[in-house]
């Protein structure tokens, strides 16, 4: 048994090859080996959503995925959203005052981006359901949900 393997994956559009121990999660790999620390580790058991990434098109908890499982996967982290600038969604978070301590926000933004990809014009119920896997310990839910709604009702476009 090697206990280590080399995997290839696409992260935010860039092909990466990484040698990882068997015990390492996707989240740990992205943070410690790729140096992208936007995705947060909080509960480590799939309850809080702070580690949310988009893997092969679907939002998932990266703390529950072994790095080895991500071999061949296409991944988007918070660093890959907006392509250097801010998306309309992120701007709406700022305008709505949806960010308090900020720790949950990367996961919220990734989960909300995935939701808008699936449902471009969501109802409040859709937003609440779509973000039900993301906890905000500041309790900022109403502004967070309002930010997602206003990002689609504002009407202007992403740059």
């Amino acid at each position: 048994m090697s206990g280590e393997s080399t995997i290839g994956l696409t992260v935010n559009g860039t092909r990466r090859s990484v040698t990882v121990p068997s015990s390492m999660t996707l989240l740990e790999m992205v943070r410690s080996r790729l140096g992208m620390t936007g995705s947060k580790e909080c509960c480590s058991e799939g309850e809080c959503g702070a580690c949310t990434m988009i893997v092969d098109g679907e939002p998932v908890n990266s703390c529950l995925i072994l790095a080895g499982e991500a071999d061949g996967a296409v991944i988007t982290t918070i660093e890959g959203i907006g392509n250097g600038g801010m998306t309309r969604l992120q701007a709406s978070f700022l305008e709505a005052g949806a960010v308090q301590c900020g720790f949950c926000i990367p996961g919220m933004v990734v989960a909300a981006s995935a939701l808008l990809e699936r449902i471009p014009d969501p109802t409040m119920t859709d937003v609440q359901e779509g973000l039900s896997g993301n906890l905000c310990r500041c309790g900022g839910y109403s502004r967070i949900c309002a930010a997602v709604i206003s990002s689609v009702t504002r009407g202007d476009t992403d740059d």
Partner: protein
Amino acid sequence: MTVLDYRRPSSLSEATELLQDTDAVALAGGTDLMVAIRHRTVGPAVVVDLKSVDDIGDDIAVEEDRLVIGGRVVMSRLVSHDVVTEQFPALASAASVVGSVQIRNRATLAGNLCNASPAADTAPALLAHSATLTLASGDSGRTVPLSDFFLGPGATILNQGEVVTSVAVPIPTGPIGSGFARVTRRRGVDLASVSLVCVVEPSGRARFGFGAVGPTPLVAESTVEDLATDDGLDHLLSGTTPISDLRAGADYRSAMLRVHTRRALVAAMAQLRARS
């Protein structure tokens, strides 16, 4: 967290061989397994990932009179599948409340059953719909009713090296009605305190699946006529043994079980009338 080794076999025979190792555990979605490894309820493990095993299906397909759900199918696929939502709305409802969006994108139906939680969200619907499982080990296979699958919390009849390759549900030949109920402390990311599904047929036969009211998910049958009386309800629920835990007290569980059993029956009868 200790994972001794991570393996991703591409064939069932290879998977079976790897799973003979006493440290080996099968990984499907990982939403329960990874938590168990982290909490050390599963020891240092050789993780055998089944996601690349072709013999374990990744499709939902109508095969003659059954709906066959492959062992790799995740909850979010199930929730959005037309035949599931039309013919088995209680199963779709149950799958739609598992964990969260993120969890449903990884968690498999088969994994939910293999984890054998007494509160397994999809078990009551599958039990009420008389689901069967196809199990395989190397080149031998067997089909068992789901009602024979669970042995206790976390324990199933799976032998060492054996995996669930598919879950099959008979497609009803005539109209049926179903009702689903789930009591939780909060809407998202919670385990059920009580969950149940009722399926009624035009004959009056009523089949129930219950979760979180015994050491395993349970199945029980009665008739619409018998369930009109307290005695009939007592008899239906006689196999349940609700306990107190951090989610609910035994008395509350028992009370909710009775109330929601009646409500699910009423909902199932209304759906049956609407579809007849």
